[in-house]
């Protein structure tokens, strides 16, 4: 049984790894870029899902951590090319082995800070307060003219990583695929650990968890911070893919999109958010070409998924598979 699952995962990874060649062969080279974006958003959505789906913390501000990850890469690059250290202290860099961990650390620290305050509340207040913090950061970056302000921050060259050419679409795709696989592996371990049980318990009944001796706030904060770090990783990758970081990445609509991906794919499941991200990107690119009112169609599809699939696309696929 376990072996069978390992084979399925290996086969799936091999198929995904072959995608750039397949895309070339069938004459759809744009597919590689599309899939790269889907993988990156999948990482962000899966990270959000740790807080939202497993921990029951409905964060409406995860775009902030995504955007901060992107800006960390962008700002480090800007200082690398200008030669002046950031705040006169931190030298810039364009090395991926430094920028990605930095993106995760900075967004994790911000998630810890925002979480520490927001997790004093719950329910609707929590949704609103995470939204408010994220919007504050959005306006901060809009007004930060040293780093492009409203126009965003152009990153002239993608980061250096083991001599690979990250401008090459296929190379970037494989890099993101590796990060997505690593993210899934880590999340898989976390949700099945003692820690994972504790946060899933908190989602179901905080009162029960207190009664058996668990201090809710600490565990929620740790999960929220991890979740923010994952979103930061995705942001750092997106900055490398687009060679651009902009305030739009922190906008509340982006938080909403991440939530839609989670719900579309399957809340509280490992693979669901990735499926949701693929579906979202596929719908966006196919619909946006036909009508500028594509969000309306997306909304209708989301409605159908929520009303009829009982657990998102993942549940739908499982049910079709059993038939």
């Amino acid at each position, binding site marked *: 049984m376990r072996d069978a699952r390992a084979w399925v995962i290996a086969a799936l990874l091999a198929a995904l790894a072959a995608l750039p060649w397949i895309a070339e062969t069938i004459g759809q080279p744009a597919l590689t870029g599309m899939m790269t974006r889907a993988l990156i958003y999948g990482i962000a959505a899966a990270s959000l899902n740790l807080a939202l789906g497993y921990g029951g913390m409905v964060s409406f501000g995860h775009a902030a951590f995504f955007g901060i990850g992107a800006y960390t890469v962008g700002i480090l690059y800007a200082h690398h090319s200008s030669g002046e250290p950031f705040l006169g202290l931190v030298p810039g860099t364009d090395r991926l082995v430094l920028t990605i961990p930095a993106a995760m650390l900075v967004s994790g620290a911000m998630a810890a800070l925002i979480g520490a305050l927001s997790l004093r509340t719950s329910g609707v207040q929590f949704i609103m307060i995470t939204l408010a913090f994220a919007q504050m950061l959005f306006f901060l970056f809009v007004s930060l003219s040293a780093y492009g302000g409203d126009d965003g921050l152009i990153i002239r060259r993608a980061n250096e990583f083991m001599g690979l050419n990250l401008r090459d679409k296929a190379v970037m795709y494989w890099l993101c695929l590796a990060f997505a696989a690593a993210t899934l592996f880590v999340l898989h*371990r*976390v949700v*099945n*650990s*003692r*820690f*994972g*049980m*504790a946060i*899933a*318990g908190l989602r*179901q*009944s905080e*009162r*029960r*968890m*207190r*009664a*058996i*001796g*668990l*201090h*809710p706030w600490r*565990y929620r904060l*740790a999960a929220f911070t991890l979740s923010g770090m994952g979103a930061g990783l995705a942001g750092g990758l997106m900055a490398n893919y687009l060679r651009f970081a902009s305030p739009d990445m922190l906008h509340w609509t982006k938080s909403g999109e991440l939530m839609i991906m989670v719900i579309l794919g399957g809340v509280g499941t490992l693979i669901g958010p990735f499926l949701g991200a693929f579906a979202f990107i596929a719908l966006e690119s196919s619909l946006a070409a036909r009508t500028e009112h594509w969000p309306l169609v997306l909304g209708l599809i989301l409605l159908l998924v929520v009303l009829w699939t009982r657990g998102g696309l993942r549940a739908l696929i499982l049910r079709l598979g059993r038939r």
Partner: protein
Amino acid sequence: MSAPVLQVRGLSKRFGGLTASDAIDLAVAPGEIHALIGPNGAGKTTLIAQLCGEISQDAGTIHLDGEPLAGLPPASRTALGIARTFQITDLLPDFTAVENVALAVQIRDGHSFRLFRDVRRDADLRARALAHLATVELVDRADILVASLSHGEAKLLELAVALATDPRLLLLDEPMAGLGPTESAAMIETLRALKSRAAILLVEHDMDAVFSLADRVSVLVYGRIIATGTVARIRDDPAVRDAYLGEGDG
């Protein structure tokens, strides 16, 4: 009498104009089942909530084995040895019976910041959880989701979860509520067997259960303890008969 496990002195709580707890003095001795009875609205659940730290008292002190509990949140009180069951069962519905107990065992072990090891392959944790399920005779339901358990089974599971925290004092808020006659009888036997493991403060409306289990009984009426004593004394106390026993089931 040996030093009490639970010592409550002068405990008071007001909600606006309503006095829910009025200078309550209460002591539960080691190995004792101390029943707390009283009509609806007497403040029994409010008292339990203050003991386990869900609401704070306005005045008075609570000591557990001589340690003051003032200001401690519920989770810390559980760590010190107070466990409770809920009047309306409050379990984790997406988890199985054994997972509910295992979570309590794992928290008893210390912190749960173990992020990378698969908890479901932790045979030792499962074995310890199963031992607690055995105490309440629920082992054959171990892998059933809580949402699929019967009401009586959920009541027993709450007891097993409470035991898994390794308590010195059990606060049981109406463990018989909603149970059928056979289930009640089984619950009475289970509780009797628990006496040796922890002192018990038993809030209960089922007088048969109270009179067959309790070593001592305290009667709470309008937030005041009007009498405390052995079952025989309480049964014959005219004030108690007047305030409580005479009213309903005679």
